[in-house]
């Protein structure tokens, strides 16, 4: 029943062949076809722009006050592309292979290969749009390296790559708005998918300024609504990031793929107290130049700079000599947790490790700069000063951000970092064409499950978002819409619209009428705590079972005791949040169920029952080489569908970064 529609033929020919044979829609017909794009991050904005350019009538929606605020903007380190500008042995195949391996062999080969193929077009497109990537003195593009790879293929713009790429896509979309091809709806939140005759034909959304519900028709609906990391309450996601759009689609029949695959990012600023509302990432690119260590002595209370070199444990370099500080994220995160759990953590909470730049400041950058300037035998002071200037150019904004949050100067003392929830590999199940199992309903970017398997490599999220939006959906959507040219726009007075809107209104009314005692925020915090403790970096069957019970209990409490102030027909951020938290609670249960079902360790999913003697994740390819796609069957009830993963080219091996 799950047809992933992977084209036949050799791996490297699949996308080429697909494009050569896919159905097309002629320009005159495109103008008659309406497409709804929900979410305006990298995937949504690029899709809206690209489809607008093709001539489709696009309506784009975002809950923020402007499409430019989508959380893709916060991505820091960079975007991968198999350009091989560095002549260091990179190729489309190697990017494909690294990504499949990095994802611990839980991604679909054909999708990943396509991603690697179009990665080069993305860079070309972005440069043409005016994205100011970092450049060398000769005027050509510069690269840096990221975790899980041994080549330099990451393009970047200081520590603000996501911002620059998103602004590029946003501008491309605003150009289409100006040309009349895209209609933009800001401060609008999608609250349901409208189904007509088994096909997605529109959405119901709420105008967040006046609270009115609106009906919008589309021949196809694209969900580009990002990840659901906020189910953990504390994550590096934006405050508004949510699962609601994807969850509503799930409840309308779309399968949810691998929901338990969560990426815990190793380098985030540690939690400082109960007031904490979100966590802040320090880019993985910092691991290019920072060395991670803890004291060799337990409960060492000395200041970092007072601990001599020989009493420091550079545990990543020790455990993984081949990749050192640049092991993939899941590996680095678990290693940090292992050290802290063993009592070697630093800082007041003891839940942190050091990320130290001094060595490279002096040895890598300081010495190079001194050499350039012809300074012979420079002293350490000079080297640090020179090194600082280079580091400032590379990551200045990140260092500033760290100092603003912690009050400590990372040029002087090592950063304190700890893993935090960052990205969700899971998402709505989609086929090769990015269509969910619901006809006409597509899912792009982080919101879908497709390309990263059980662990995403750094600088690959931006790549996937833009690949889906600029270079995949413009082709694949035609294959569906070519058969829809005869479908007249369905008036929003159609029974399906009326009923769906009524269901949405009823739910809002129910929420508002609970008039309980506890705030939405307090429920969200409790959910996050359950998820982090029992479905976080390490999971086991008992904990997951407990979590499921606790979440079901929490859900009951929520629906009987939540307090939402204000009214419906007005701007009401608490009501918006309540709807999202209600969906997160349901999602949390499914995540635990999925984690419980997957009794193996792979990528970011670590089941304590399945580990090697050295404590590394142990995959079980015999029993779990599949995508778990869950079908919603009613309250707390899901049916598992399996899409078996075939690896014809990248044969699964135990991942080793030693």
């Amino acid at each position, binding site marked *: 029943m799950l047809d992933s529609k992977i084209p036949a033929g050799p791996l490297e020919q699949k996308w080429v062949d697909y494009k050569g044979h896919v159905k097309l829609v002629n320009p005159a017909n495109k103008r008659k076809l309406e497409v709804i794009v929900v979410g305006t991050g990298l995937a949504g904005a690029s899709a809206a722009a690209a489809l607008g350019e093709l001539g489709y009538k696009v309506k784009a929606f975002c809950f*923020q006050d402007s499409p430019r605020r989508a959380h893709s903007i916060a991505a820091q380190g960079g975007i991968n592309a198999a350009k091989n500008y560095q002549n260091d042995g990179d190729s489309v195949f190697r990017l494909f292979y690294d990504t499949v391996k990095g994802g611990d062999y839980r991604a679909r080969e054909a999708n990943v290969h396509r991603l690697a193929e179009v990665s080069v077009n993305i860079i070309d497109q972005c440069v043409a749009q005016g994205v*100011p990537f970092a450049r060398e003195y000769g005027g050509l593009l510069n690269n840096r390296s990221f975790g899980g790879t041994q080549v330099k293929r990451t393009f970047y713009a200081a520590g603000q790559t996501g911002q620059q790429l998103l602004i590029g896509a946003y501008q491309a979309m605003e150009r289409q708005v100006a040309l009349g091809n895209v209609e933009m709806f800001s401060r609008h939140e999608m609250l349901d998918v409208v189904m007509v005759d088994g096909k997605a034909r529109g959405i119901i959304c709420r105008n967040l300024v006046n609270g009115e519900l609106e009906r919008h028709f589309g021949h196809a609906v694209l969900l580009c609504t990002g990840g659901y990391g906020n189910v953990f309450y504390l994550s590096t996601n934006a*405050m508004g990031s949510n699962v609601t759009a994807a969850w509503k689609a799930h409840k309308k029949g779309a399968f949810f793929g691998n929901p338990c695959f969560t990426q815990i990012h190793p380098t985030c600023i540690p939690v400082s107290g109960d007031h904490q509302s979100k966590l802040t990432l320090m880019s993985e690119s910092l691991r290019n130049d920072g060395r991670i260590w803890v004291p060799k002595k337990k409960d060492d209370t000395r200041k970092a700079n007072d601990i001599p070199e020989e009493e420091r444990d550079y545990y990543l370099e020790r455990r993984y000599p081949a990749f050192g500080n640049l092991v993939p994220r899941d590996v680095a995160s678990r290693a940090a947790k292992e050290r802290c759990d063993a009592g070697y953590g630093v800082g007041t909470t003891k839940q942190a490790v050091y990320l130290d730049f001094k060595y490279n400041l002096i040895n890598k950058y300081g010495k190079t700069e001194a050499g350039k300037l012809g300074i012979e035998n420079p002293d350490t002071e000079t080297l640090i000063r020179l090194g600082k200037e280079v580091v400032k150019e590379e990551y200045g904004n990140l260092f500033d951000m760290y100092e603003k949050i912690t009050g400590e100067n990372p040029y002087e003392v090592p950063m304190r970092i700890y893993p935090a929830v960052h990205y969700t590999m899971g998402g709505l199940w989609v086929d090769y064409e990015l269509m969910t199992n619901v006809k006409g309903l597509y899912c792009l970017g982080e919101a879908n499950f497709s390309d990263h398997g059980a662990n995403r490599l750094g600088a690959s999220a931006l790549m996937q978002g833009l690949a889906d939006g600029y270079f995949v959906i413009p082709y694949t959507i035609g294959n569906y819409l070519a058969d829809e040219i005869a479908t007249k726009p369905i008036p929003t007075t159609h029974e399906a619209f009326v009923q769906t809107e009524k269901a949405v209104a009823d739910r809002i009314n129910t929420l508002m009428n609970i008039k309980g005692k506890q705030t939405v925020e307090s429920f969200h915090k409790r959910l996050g705590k359950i998820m982090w403790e029992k479905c976080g970096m390490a999971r086991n069957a008992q904990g997951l079972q407990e979590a499921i019970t606790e979440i079901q209990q929490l859900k009951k409490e929520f629906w009987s005791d939540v307090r939402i102030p204000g009214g419906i027909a007005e701007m009401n951020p608490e009501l918006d949040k309540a709807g999202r938290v209600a969906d997160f609670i349901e999602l949390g249960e499914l995540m635990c169920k999925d984690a419980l079902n997957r009794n193996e360790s792979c990528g970011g999913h670590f089941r304590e029952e399945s580990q090697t003697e050295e404590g590394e994740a142990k995959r079980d390819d015999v029993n779990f080489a599949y995508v778990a796609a869950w079908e919603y069957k009613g309250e707390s009830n899901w049916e598992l569908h399996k899409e078996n993963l075939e690896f014809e080219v990248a044969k699964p091996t135990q991942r080793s970064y030693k």
Partner: protein
Amino acid sequence: MEHYMMNLTLKVWRQKNANDKGGFESYPVKNISSEMSFLEMIDVLNEELIRDGKDPIAFDHDCREGICGACSMYINGRPHGPWEQNTTCQLHMRAYKDGDTITIEPWRANAFPVIKDLVVDRSAFDRIIQAGGYISVNTGNAVDANAMPVEKDKADAAFAAAACIGCGACVAACKNSSALLFVSAKVSHLALLPQGSPERKSRALNMVAQMDKEGFGACTNTGACEAVCPKGISITNIARLNAEFSLAALVSQ
């Protein structure tokens, strides 16, 4: 950092909706940690307000890491508060001491009407971008990314201008409510790159025209915008836009 607790008084602008007259309300907040961010302090107050059955304070915020540009509070007479090159969300409470009174207002400008409390409508910025803040290149048209080298200094300057987060602090700080720093940052970003040069003239003319239409004031080079810009966008961009605009206007037909 030394950690301490404090009690504060907040004077916050409350306004039910666009048509409401609005006014200040005072709220005491207790046991605020110096390690909290400013918005986390507002979160604490909002939780209390909800428990007391009152309407919480509405404010725009999203990423809380200083990059999305959503947060927009005018704190004690300065957009984004007292710290240099900072956004409200990155302002931390160690900037204050026990007993302080903090007055919080929304951005004020005719072009940024208040929607509710501290939330304002900044869609004028989107419309300014629509007027020409882009390079017209359809997807798939691009040549190889390294086909056109870009002088590093210019690429760096373009990046510095492109770092604008569109928060609107420049408008909020300007005595004329001018959006010229915002407009000039975008015009500079694109004019400095060879890819942007075919549309240089029309871009400068159209974006300025749209800015005027939206009801922003004219720039008088006071420099307040630059002083409060969270991303340190320089007013030399305004001078560059002035040149771009004047030349474009002189040679246009």
